[in-house]
């Protein structure tokens, strides 16, 4: 998770370095997109089938 490491410490010195080391923006962008596509595939599989009824019947009592 190199990306995350870079985010974790946004100290000015390491920030410049991390820009150099980072893959080109287009490459990184397509990575993230592929990851999101996988997530969306999974959501298509597990999302409640009758969304309208599900949302309508999700009624809670106030709590606390």
């Amino acid at each position, binding site marked *: *998770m190199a990306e*995350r490491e870079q*985010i*974790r*410490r*946004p100290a000015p010195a390491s920030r410049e370095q991390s820009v150099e080391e980072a893959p080109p923006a287009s490459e990184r962008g397509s990575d993230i997109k592929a*990851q*999101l596509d996988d*997530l*969306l595939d*999974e*959501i298509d599989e*597990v*999302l*409640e089938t009758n*969304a*309208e009824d*599900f*949302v309508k*019947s*999700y*009624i*809670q*009592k*106030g*709590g*606390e």
Partner: protein
Amino acid sequence: MLASLTGRSGPASPGALSLASVRAVAVPKTLGLETEYGIVHRGAPEPNPISASSLLINAYLIATHQAPEPGRSAVGWDFTDETPGNDARGGAGAGALAPEIETHLVNAVLTNGARYYVDHAHPELSTPECADARSAVVYDRAAELIAARSMEAARMLLPPSEEIVVYKNNSDGKGNSYGCHENYLVSRAVPFSRIVTHATAHFVTRQIFCGAGKMGSETSGMRLDEAGYQISQRADFIEEEVGLETTLKRPIVNTRDEPHADAAKYRRLHVIVGDANMSQVATFLKVGTTALVMALTEDDAVPRELRFAAPVAALRQVSRDLSLREPLELVDGSTITALGAQWELLAAARAYVETRGADAVGGEVAKEVLSRWEAVLGGLERDPTEVAAQIDWVAKLRLLEGFRSRHGLDSQDARLRALDIQYHDLRPAKSLAARAGLETLVDEAEAELAMTEPPPDTRAFFRGRCLQRFAAEVVAANWDSIVFDVGEGSLRRVSMTEPTRGTVAHVGKMFDECGSAIELLRRLGAAGA
């Protein structure tokens, strides 16, 4: 009455933070989370959330052998000392406004020191007392696993056409809210007005990293679809700046004054403004930053007071400002953004830890809080999508936008609203948060162990061990005492008014050496106060 867990803590550990040049007055930030879960009883002819919650919890207790044996009553909650109507601003609250205590519903103490019970019409789990933010994440994740296990256990008891499902969110999208409360031990010596000032500054602005995200608006006078997407689940339900209420006219700073500890030394700051988080990093930051802000408050180490001209309006404004750039007006006429306020609090917290040490706020854990706090603010400032693996509202928004564009949906499509709710589903097979690529801080084995094992470093250790070893002799328990019946006629109450006592270091050996509850009580009595 025995008093051996009520005495003073030992001296602070020497050496570790010897650079500290000024002695901190902040008390150790013993903390915990209480989460009310949304509940749905599917396939039930006449669903009733109270009986569904009871069934859910009882199913768990039976499945994990924490239910009472036939002929014995359960280890119940002891309400003797509960005073939720007391107001931190002084005096006992008016009776009509005091929260009602429902003593007749399921109310169990678990072997990990947690309380699992039915509150109003929801299952609620209060974590055991934790010594730092990381421990809070472990026990919050353990609570999710307990909820998942409870659902499985309930399925075994229900007809195949029925299922009880639990959601870790704070609103049904129709104007009904239920809470995820936080608790922090604070010195009684601190003027409450100072707590209000700094807590308000933090609570109005911390949502940018601990908001769980929500479609639509539930503010009266506003159409449901008017707000689009907002950062916080709770902001719509906060109506007052300061107050005792938790179920209506909810305040930013809650004044319930019920320390569950030595009231001469401690307050318990009871926080009701926050969202329940699916992201472990968000929970870590929510709890860790708030513990730091409270320590700063106790030591009067916040360089300037950030007083908003209209705190409630500012809270809602922050929730609706996905740009994170809108200026918020301060009482002196100047403005600051939510990010600006958080950078300022972070700088103050960093300076505090450097000069006074991190003893009161979890030591090394506090340093991780500082570095993650900085990283998340940096990410939010540059481009929120950078923190989609850490921050719930960003993670959920990414899923909503991706799903919407993939299927070419209208912004009010029911499938998007379903996704919003299902993000918080605690069934592993259905949870969307579990599929959102969120970073985790604790491994599952550690969280699984925490379902039954108490934290070693607070009084919860004593409570948990008593339940593990001597459940048959424990009649009742609550946060600051345990009542035993060892067959000697009168009941014996062990008082635990010091949250940092009763740890493994303090009583671990005693448990190893005692074969019975009566022996434990004898040893505790001999140890004296």
